[in-house]
C-alpha cells in the first residue's frame, strides 16, 4: 500500500535563481537613501507575510553498520519495548518510524575497497558505483538534491559535517564527484555565524505556506562595506576565469566551470546574508529573537575526532550537533548531513567484553556468513558501540523537541534519518539500520515499525524524502518507486 505523495512546498524558482548582481540592480536606487525610513514596511502586519516553519532534512549517519538483531524490533506495527541499540530512544518512541528490510542493490564496479564502495552507495542509492581508474564515481546524493530544492530559501543550501572523507565519502555532487565534510568545529561555526548574530525567524502558525520570499530591500550598513570589497574581488576572479576559459580545451574548461560554480556559491551566500540582514532590520513588527550561542571558548574548537577519548568524542558530537540544530533553528540551512565515526577508533570505556577495542577489527570479527561463525564477543562489542552512538543521537532529538516553533517543535518540523553507511560491519548491503524521527510537518506517521520485503531499495525512501523537501521527482538512484507506508 502506498500513501499519496505528501503536500509539497515548491521553492520559488525566482528566489533560487536570484543572484547578487540582479539583486543589486533591483535595489541600487535604494542604496543611496537612509536605510530604515526609505524601505517599504514589509512587516507592518507580520502574520500576513510570515511563513510557517519549513521542513528540514537532517541525516545522522554513524560508521560501522549495526548489529541488526539488537536494532530491529521483532514485531511490525506500533513500537513496543525497543531493542537494546534503540533503547536510549525509548522516550521518543512516539516520534520514531523504524524502517527495516531496505537494501542497496547498486553494483560496485572497478575495484575499490568494500568500505568506500558501501559509502558510495549510501546516500546515492546509485545503480553503479564505479572507479574510473583512481577516481571514484557515483551519482548525486539525496542530501545534495534536497539542498538544491530549497537552496534559494536559506543562507547555505546545505551543511555537511563530521568526520568522513578518506574512505567514507557519502555526499556526491550532481556531477558525480565527492562533497567534502567539515570536521572542524570552528570552521562550521564560522561558516554559519561569523559576523552576524544568530537569529530565529519569526515563523507564523497559520500560514499554509511553508516557504516564502523574504521582502527584498536595501542593505544594512554593517554588511555593506565588507560585502562590497568581497564582491569586487569576486568580480575580478570571474573575469579572470572567463578570460581563461576561452583559451582552454574542453576538459580544462570543465574544471574552470567547477571553479566558477564554487565562486558563485560564495557569491550567493553573500547575497543571502544581505537579504537576511535586511529582512531582520525591516521586521519592525516583531524583532527576531536573538539566541545565545550555547558553545564558546577556545578549547572545544581544537577537539578532533581521531585523537579523542570517549568522553571527548561525546562532547564533539554534542557540539557539532548543537551547531547543526542551531543552523536549522535559525533557518541558516534546511538540509544537514552529519556523519559520525570512521571505523578507526578505539572504544576504551565503551567496549567492556573484549580486550579488542578497535572498531574495524571488531566489525570484521563480529560478522560472518553464516552469522554463527562470527565471534559473539566481538559482536557484543559492536552492539555496545552502537548503543553508545544512539545515546548521543538521543540528545539531538531531545534538543530538537525542546525548540518551539510557534506551537510545534523543531523535531515536528523535521525529517531526521538515523542510519549507517553499511548494513553491518561485514560490508553488508541488505537490511540497513534506518529510522526516521520527527513527523516531517505531519507527513510521516510515527510510533511504528514497518518491515519491507527484503531487497526494497533504500532509494525508494529517498524519493519520499525528496518529495517532502519539494523536489517532485518520482525516481532517484535505483529506486523502484515510492516507498509508501510512511
Amino acid at each position: 500500500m502506498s500513501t499519496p505523495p505528501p503536500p509539497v512546498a515548491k521553492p520559488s524558482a525566482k528566489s533560487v535563481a536570484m543572484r547578487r548582481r540582479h539583486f543589486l540592480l533591483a535595489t541600487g536606487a535604494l542604496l543611496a537613501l537612509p536605510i530604515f525610513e526609505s524601505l517599504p514596511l514589509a512587516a507592518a502586519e507580520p502574520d500576513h507575510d510570515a511563513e510557517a516553519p519549513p521542513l528540514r532534512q537532517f541525516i545522522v549517519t554513524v560508521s560501522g553498520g549495526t548489529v541488526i538483531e539488537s536494532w530491529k524490533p521483532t514485531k511490525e506495527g506500533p513500537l513496543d519495548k525497543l531493542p537494546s541499540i534503540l533503547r536510549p530512544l525509548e522516550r521518543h518512541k512516539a516520534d520514531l518510524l523504524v524502517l527495516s528490510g531496505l537494501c542497496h542493490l547498486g553494483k560496485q564496479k572497478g575495484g575499490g575497497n568494500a568500505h568506500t564502495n558501501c559509502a558510495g552507495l549510501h546516500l546515492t542509492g546509485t545503480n553503479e558505483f564505479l572507479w574510473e581508474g583512481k577516481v571514484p564515481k557515483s551519482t548525486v546524493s539525496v542530501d545534495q538534491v534536497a539542498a538544491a530544492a530549497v537552496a534559494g530559501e536559506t543562507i547555505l543550501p546545505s551543511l555537511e559535517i563530521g568526520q568522513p572523507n578518506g574512505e567514507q565519502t557519502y555526499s556526491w555532487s550532481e556531477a558525480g564527484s565527492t562533497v567534502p565534510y567539515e570536521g572542524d568545529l570552528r570552521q562550521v561555526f564560522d561558516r554559519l555565524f561569523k559576523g552576524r548574530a544568530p537569529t530565529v525567524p519569526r515563523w507564523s502558525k497559520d500560514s499554509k505556506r511553508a516557504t516564502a520570499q523574504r521582502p527584498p530591500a536595501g542593505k544594512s550598513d554593517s554588511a555593506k562595506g565588507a560585502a562590497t570589497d568581497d564582491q569586487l574581488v569576486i568580480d575580478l576572479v570571474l573575469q579572470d576565469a572567463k578570460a581563461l576559459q576561452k583559451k582552454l580545451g574542453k576538459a580544462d574548461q570543465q574544471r574552470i566551470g567547477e571553479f566558477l560554480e564554487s565562486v558563485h556559491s560564495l557569491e550567493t551566500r553573500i547575497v543571502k546574508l544581505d537579504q537576511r540582514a535586511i529582512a531582520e532590520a525591516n521586521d519592525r513588527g516583531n524583532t527576531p529573537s536573538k539566541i545565545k550561542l550555547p558553545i564558546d571558548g577556545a578549547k572545544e574548537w581544537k577537539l578532533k575526532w581521531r585523537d579523542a577519548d570517549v568522553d571527548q568524542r561525546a562532547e564533539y558530537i554534542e557540539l557539532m550537533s548543537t551547531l547543526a540544530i542551531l543552523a536549522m533553528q535559525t533557518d541558516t540551512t534546511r538540509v544537514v548531513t552529519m556523519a559520525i565515526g570512521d571505523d578507526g577508533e578505539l572504544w576504551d570505556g565503551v567496549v567492556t567484553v573484549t580486550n579488542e577495542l578497535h572498531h574495524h577489527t571488531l566489525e570484521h570479527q563480529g560478522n560472518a556468513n553464516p552469522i554463527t561463525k562470527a565471534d559473539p564477543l566481538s559482536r557484543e562489542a559492536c552492539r555496545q558501540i552502537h548503543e553508545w552512538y544512539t545515546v548521543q543521537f538521543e540528545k539531538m532529538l531531545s534538543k530538537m523537541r525542546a525548540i518551539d516553533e510557534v506551537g510545534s517543535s523543531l523535531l515536528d518540523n523535521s525529517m531526521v534519518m538515523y542510519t549507517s553507511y553499511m548494513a553491518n560491519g561485514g560490508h553488508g548491503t541488505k537490511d540497513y539500520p534506518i529510522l526516521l524521527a520527527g513527523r516531517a510537518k505531519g507527513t510521516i506517521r510515527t510510533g511504528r515499525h514497518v518491515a519491507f520485503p527484503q531487497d526494497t531499495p533504500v532509494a525508494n525512501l529517498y524519493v519520499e524524502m525528496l518529495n517532502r523537501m519539494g523536489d517532485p521527482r518520482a525516481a532517484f538512484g535505483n529506486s523502484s518507486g515510492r516507498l509508501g507506508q510512511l
Partner: protein
Amino acid sequence: MMIFLRQLFIITLLVGMLPMMGRGSAAVAVDFKSTIQPLLKNYCFDCHGEKKTKAGVDLKEFIDEAAVKRDLPTWRKVDEQLANKEMPPEESKNSLTDADRAMLREWLNATIKDALADAVKVKDPGIMPIRRLTRIQYRNSVRDLLGIPIDAAELVSLPSDNERGYDTYAGTLNIPPLLFEKYHAAAKQALTALTPDSAGWKMVVIADPGKTATTQKTAARTIITRFARRAYRRPVAPEESARLYKLFDTLAASRPFEDSIRTTLCAVLVSPNFLFRIEQDRGGARSKEAYPISSFDLATRLSYLLWSTTPDDELSMLADKGTLTQPAILEAQVVRLLADDRARALSEGFFATWLQIDHLDRARPMQSNFPSFTETLRKAMYDETLTFVNELRKNNGSLLDLLKSDHLYVNEELASHYGIAGVTGAELRKVAIPTGMNRGGVLGMGSVLTMTSHTYRTSPTLRGKWVLEVLLGTPPPPPPADVEPISEDTTPGTAAKSFRDQLEKHVTDAACASCHRKMDPLGFSLDNYDAIGAWRESTAARPLDTNGTLPTGEKMTGANDLRTILWKNRSQVMRTLVSQFLLYATGRDLITADEVVVQDVLARLDADGHRFSSLIMGIVTSTPFLMRAPGK
C-alpha cells in the same frame, strides 16, 4: 582491508619466481578479430567485460590491436596472469589449452614490442590537464609568496586531497562548491598577517608608496605587477594587470593604501591563475605534434615536483630569461633544488605515499598486548622512514639501500624497541646496524611492520600484500565481497593451533588461494617481527613458523631469505619505484609511451649505482616532463 590498492603501472614478473617470457616472437601475423578476440571472449569476458569488470579490467573495450597498443599497462598485467597461469582461474568452467595460452602470449609479446618501438619513434608526453594546487602546494605557495610563516590551508581546514594515492593525481583534484569560499577566507586571513613589521612586508611591498595619491598609485602598480608575476608563475598579461590596477584604484578611493593593497593581493591569491596550474598551449599550432614547454612552465613543474612550492627568485629569473630549458642550466638547477632543505618535500610528498607509511597513523596496536607502543614510538617510526629517504637524497645515496642497508636512524625509544643499546635522547641519529641484527632497509622498519599488522597480531597477508604492491608493483586484487573471515580465538594464551594452521584456509579455499599463495608466504617470512615490529624468536601462545613456499616452488625461511629474494629482484623493485615516481611527477595515469621513459631511467640508474639524483634527473629530462601535447 582498510588499506587501499593503488593501481600500479608496471606489472611485470616476479623474476625468478616465474617462467621466462616471450622467446623471440618476431613477426607473428595473427589477426586480432578472428583469432585473439574469440579467445578473450571465451575465457576472459565473463569476469572482465561482459557482466563484470573484476579488478577494474574490462577486456571487451579493446576492439582492435591498436587499442591494445594504447594501453600497455593493462596488457602487461594480462601477460603476467597468463604467464603465471593465474588466469583463467582454476575454478573456471573451461580451461585454456597450453597451445592457446602460448599463442595468446606470443601475439601479446609481439604486440607489446611493436607498441614500444612505436613509442620510441613518436614522442608522446601524454595529456597534462590543468589542475588546482594540492593542499600542500597551496599552503607552501601562500607562505612563500607572502614570506610569512603561515599555514593558510590549516587556517580554514582546507579539505585533504587524494587519500588513496598521490595528492598530485589530477583526476582527484576536485573543486567542491565550498572550496572557493575557503580559498577566499584563507587569503584574507593570511593577508592580515602582512603588516609593515612582518617578515614578508619588504618582499611584497617593493615600492615606497609615499604620501600622495599619485605616488601610492605608482607604487601599487609596481607591487601588484611583481606579486602577480610571482603568484601566476608567468608574466602577467596587460588586461590582467589592468583589472588589478582598476581594483586597487577603486579601493584606494575610500580606503588606506595598506588595506587596498591587501585586498588587491587577495584577488591575486584567489584568481584561477594562481590556484590552477595552467600551461601555455602553443598558440595557433594546428599540428598534433608535441612541443617543448616554456621555461615558465618548466620552472613551475620543477619547483612543485621537488619543493612542492612556487618557483623561487632564481628559477623565476631563469624562466624570464628563457634559459631554463637549456640542458646544462636545467641540470644545475636540479642539483641546486635537490641540495636545498625544501626538497624534503619529496620524502613527504612522494616517498611517504609510495611506501604507504601515511597508513601508520591508522595502526591501533592493543595496549593490553603491546604496552610499549606509545605515540612517541609511532612518531619515531614514521620519522625513521622519512629520515632514511631524506638522507638518501642529501647524500645522493643508492636507492638500493631501500632494500638493504648497513645503517638506520633511531632515537632512544626506537633503538631500545629494536634492541640497539647506547642511543640516548629523542633525536633520531644515524646508527650502524650491529652484526647479526635483522634490520636495514624498509623491510626492517617499524613503520612498515606496524601498519601492516592487525591490532593484536601480525598479518602475513597484509605484509605479503605490501611487498607485492609497494616493492614489486604487482598488487593482488581486493578480496571478494562478503568473504568469510577466518575464525580465530583472540583470547590471549588459549590458541591451540599454530598461526599458520589458522591461516591455512587461505590456500585451501579456491576463492582465496590464487592471491593468498602469493601473499601469505612472503608475509610469514617476516613473522619474527611482531605486530609493532619488535624482533621475537618465539611467541608465548603459538609456534612461530617463518617457512614459506612461493608459487614457483622456491622455499624460503625468515626475513633474510625474503631480503635475498628481493635483492635478486632488485631491478623490478627499481622499476616499480621509477614508475611510481613518474606517476607522482605527471599526476596522470601512465601510458604506453611512458614505458620508454621507465626503461631509460632504469638504464641510467644501472649505469651509476642507482644514485638518488639519477632518478630525479631521469624523470626531469624525460619527454613527459619537458614536453607537452597540444591542448585537447
